[in-house]
């Protein structure tokens, strides 16, 4: 079955086109839906929801916060029903911030639980666009099955520092880590390898089931070698490291 992806848009969403494109070449069917339209849609008509990058509502108050509240207070039941049906959700950059702030991630016990982790201003207090190396815990998420152990993707954000509420959460989160900022050799390292000061170098996490993924780096910006900064100096694979994430999602429904 060709899965249907709902790319959710709100005021200030801005990576929706390239995210939709990545899903399209991975073989999915795409529909972009503006948040106000959601009331009139059955989420269960879709198999994948993608929350893409951007600055929803200007990131006013805090990145992703207003959209997170909107989902939490206006569309909670629709999302719960969708999640229970063995479907997939991916939140990239701003989408990750939204998932964390409304409690869909990490969902230690259930969806929409009280927020226990957050993504806050980078240690540099600056927006930064740079390519990073990521260690992948590929068996923890549907999206990362069979991925290389170290991949490169770009980050571009001002509020990507992953923090946790307390030591207890810090213990619990370990098993949920899917992507970690590392140096070229795969070791944990400081700035600029860890571009924002995230604890444990956390760049992306999953829920308990492995069906919901949130990450700060942009896999949709590395689906072809031409997007990689070193394509004029090295022989690279035709497809970029990020494409696998979209392909895995589509494959999940090909039974």
């Amino acid at each position, binding site marked *: 079955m060709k899965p249907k992806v709902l790319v959710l848009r709100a*005021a*200030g969403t801005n990576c929706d086109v390239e995210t939709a494109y990545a899903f399209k070449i991975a073989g999915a069917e795409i529909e972009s839906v503006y948040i106000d339209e959601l009331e009139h849609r059955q989420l269960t008509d879709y198999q994948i929801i993608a929350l893409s990058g951007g600055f929803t509502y200007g990131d006013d108050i805090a990145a992703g916060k207003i959209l997170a*509240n*909107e989902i939490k207070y206006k569309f909670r039941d629709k999302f719960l029903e969708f999640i229970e049906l063995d479907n997939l959700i991916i939140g990239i950059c701003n989408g990750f911030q939204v998932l964390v702030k409304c409690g869909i991630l990490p969902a230690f016990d259930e969806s929409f639980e009280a927020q226990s982790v957050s993504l*806050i201003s980078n240690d540099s207090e600056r*927006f930064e666009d740079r390519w990073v190396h990521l260690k992948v815990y590929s068996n923890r998420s549907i999206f990362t099955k069979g991925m290389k152990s170290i991949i490169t993707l770009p980050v571009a954000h001002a509020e990507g520092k992953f923090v946790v509420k307390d030591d207890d959460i810090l213990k619990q989160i370990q098993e949920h880590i899917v992507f970690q900022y590392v140096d070229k050799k795969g070791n944990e390292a400081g700035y600029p390898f860890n571009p924002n000061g995230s604890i444990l170098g956390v760049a992306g996490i999953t829920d308990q089931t492995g069906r919901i993924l949130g990450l700060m780096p942009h896999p949709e910006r590395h689906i072809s070698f031409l997007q990689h900064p070193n*394509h004029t100096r090295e022989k690279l694979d035709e497809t970029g490291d990020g494409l696998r994430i979209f392909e895995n999602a589509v494959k999940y429904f090909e039974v």
Partner: protein
Amino acid sequence: MFRVEITRENDPRGRLIKDDFASFGVDDIEYIEVRDVYYLHGDISKEQAERIASELLCDPVVEQYRIGDPEGFEILYNPGVTDSKEDSIKKAIADLNITIDAAKTGTNYIIKGRYDEARLQQTASLFLFNPLVQHIKHAKEEVYKPAPYKLSVHTIDLSGDLSSISHDMGLFLSEIEMKQIREYFNKDGKMPTDVELESIAQTWSEHCRHKTFLGRITMNHERIDNLLKNTIMRATNEISHPMCLSVFHDNSGVIDFDEEYGVCFKVETHNHPSALEPYGGAGTGIGGVIRDILGTGLGARPVLNTDIFCFGIPDFDFQKLPGGILHPQTIIRGVIRGVRDYGNRMGIPTASGAIYFDDDFLYNPLVYCGCVGLIRKDRIKKSAQSGDAVLLVGGRTGRDGIHGVTFASAELSEESEKSCVQIGNPIMEKRVMDCLLRVSDEGILSSLTDCGGGGLSSAVGEMGKSTGVKVWLDRVPLKYAGLSPREIWISESQERMVLAVPHEHLSRVIKIFQSERVPATAIGEFTNDKRLRLFYKDELVCDLDMEFLHNGLPMPFKKAKIKVVPEQHYDLPKPIEFNSILLAIVSSLNSCSREWVIREYDHEVQGGSVVKPLLGVDNIGPQDGVVIKPRLDKNRGVVVSCGINPSYGRLDAYNMAVSVIDEALRNLVATGGDIRKAAMLDNFCFSSPEREEILGDIVMSARGCYDAAVAFGVPFISGKDSLYNEWVDNQGKVHLIPPTLLISAIGIIDDVAKCVTMDLKAPGNDIYLVGETAGELGGSEYFRMLGIKVGQVPKVNLTQAPKIMNQVHAAMEKGLIQSCHDLSEGGLGLAISEMAFSGGFGVKLDLQDVIYNGKDRRFDFVLFAESNTRFLLEIEKGDAGKINDIFQGLPIVKIGETTEVKYLRVFFGKKKLIDLPLSIIQAKWQRKIV
């Protein structure tokens, strides 16, 4: 009303601000804490305020909130200044099922230490807030509530002193122009209303009519009617390039891209607003040029932003800062944050640009913002039809930016009109863009334009030029009550566009905008009476003949004089040690790394970035041009680059123009572009053209543009001038900027996989220098470093230059060039250094065979001359023969090779000039600026 303040654990902001205070000389602060503040106005309970604070305003993981009065000092927006966060906060509170009347944001600073309060506040006003738009909280704050407006139409008696009427109303019209207006109204037998006079002033402003470039000039007994037509447009006409689809008449120029699409490009300046309020000025600058692209044809999709800045010296002594101006540090930070916050939120990559530092931009910085768009070829033509509705979409109208356009014709001074200062709302513009592109795709518009300088007056007036139009100003949605018809008509509130919509499609168009909550209001109708008629309710407040409005302007006579630069000699001993000179050059302000700026821009959003502004083994290398592929499913690309050099302009305006054209095209070619598939934009920034020598420089630059464009065969497709860039200080002394021409180049690349970058690729390859070096060091970084202010500016051999560029491209097409870098500021010395540390390989050079024009073949000149049309190429040894064939008859010489050992070693025969590890050169190059 409730005041909520939020504190964050381990907030780094306090420490960073403490460092800032220290850099401005306040170093006796122990610690600073920053709190975000929200004022919630309206009829809500304490419990509701608590709920808003805990569930919305506060991050439960790292933040705490408190409701109550402030300690310390607090920065708030001035009454009437739009708080761009208010809309989204109100929306978010509504999601909690609570309604409030107004929300205001602020920042609270708790400062501990033995500092002097007055000095602290004064220093804070230099970088923490801008008194033009913000203030330190008063004891009693009020929400801005202007009195409701009651219509009173003013008529103006033109029998008095015309100059003082123009001055008192802030019209910036000359006496001749005022006389023409008086004659028109005398003939009409009535006195003009204030709205009528304003409409004429806006339409006839320098900003809208380019009176210098289109007017009449006499220079040394020679008469020039319409400089633009005689130089820049003439070049385009003569070249008559088949790729030009729409040039000079729309909001941007359009060239051919592929079967379905064209690409359009426009660069604007926003200098005066950025001098006064850098953050808002630069943000609305980028916002404005994006609307130019949106408003091209029937709508183009923005795919790339460019930004080019000229600033004063960032380490200017803070104690010596003249009154009334902002410190360069303040301006630099504000401008970069402004472009970042607007461009990033729009989701348009900001990937191409330049920054130039010079003492003479202390008083008047330059901020150029550009935007490239993708437009369907069947959407390029447009015209409003009689009977179409005038639909205003986007942000509401307020008192922002009244007189921005006429203000552009005035020199800055401490008394400059300040109401032109605005802060943009990029998310509103993003929503306008998303909806507009949907409307454009459906093909249901007749015409479209952006609301920029001159507001509705310019936008509607221009669109209705050939039909006539009537508008009801009371229908324009306002931010607050109390605006007069005159204010509504000329307000430059941001994020607005004007559409001409056939009546049968009106409801569909409005529905699309409403689906994303963008205000869309029919405010009038295009007619067939060729008159501009404005109503406020039933009252006619303006009734003008379109013919007079658009063609009645008497074109002025201006006098120009060619600047005579007396030959000045300099005595320069030959240096004996070169390592230190090279390190000084690589760390000079105009040569060093721009990474600190580039990373703050999202230069990869939209996923089309192919050649990035930072490249190489550690992604720090400064690439000459950038390449994007605007259609993700195609490998066809767009390359963009620029050239600018005010130091040359100060000495020789003609050779500056040809040099910066050469530079822009060099950068384009070095990245994979082909000058036969390229076009250019010109942006003139000069001081007042009322000064004969300045106008002389303008004429000479324009002639340089003509000569170079024709020689290279690269047409101009659009351009803009910003004149009157000067500052009158409080002693009455006038400070001029150096003549500054920005050339932006755009080209089409058939296959982006063939692009080449500047970082060295492997050891054991040969390094070739293409082009001739000459002892023309006037305006060079080397001479600036030595304090030499004279000398010959580099010229361009216009017969040879296009041939060289074509052959570099030919070699690239054949895959023979491993890396390629153009030589500009800092000459050969800087260029080879950048290639080496960016690629992570050393270089060994022998400069003995460098082709040199002239008798003064000195080591320092060979290393640091900035002669035009030169490239460094990295070639695999086996390709030497093919390279020599391709460059037959052109100046090319092998000067060395790449090495595994990471050193830069430069010889001249047996004499060693430079021997430095790359790590040291790179560290100097990556110096901190702000």
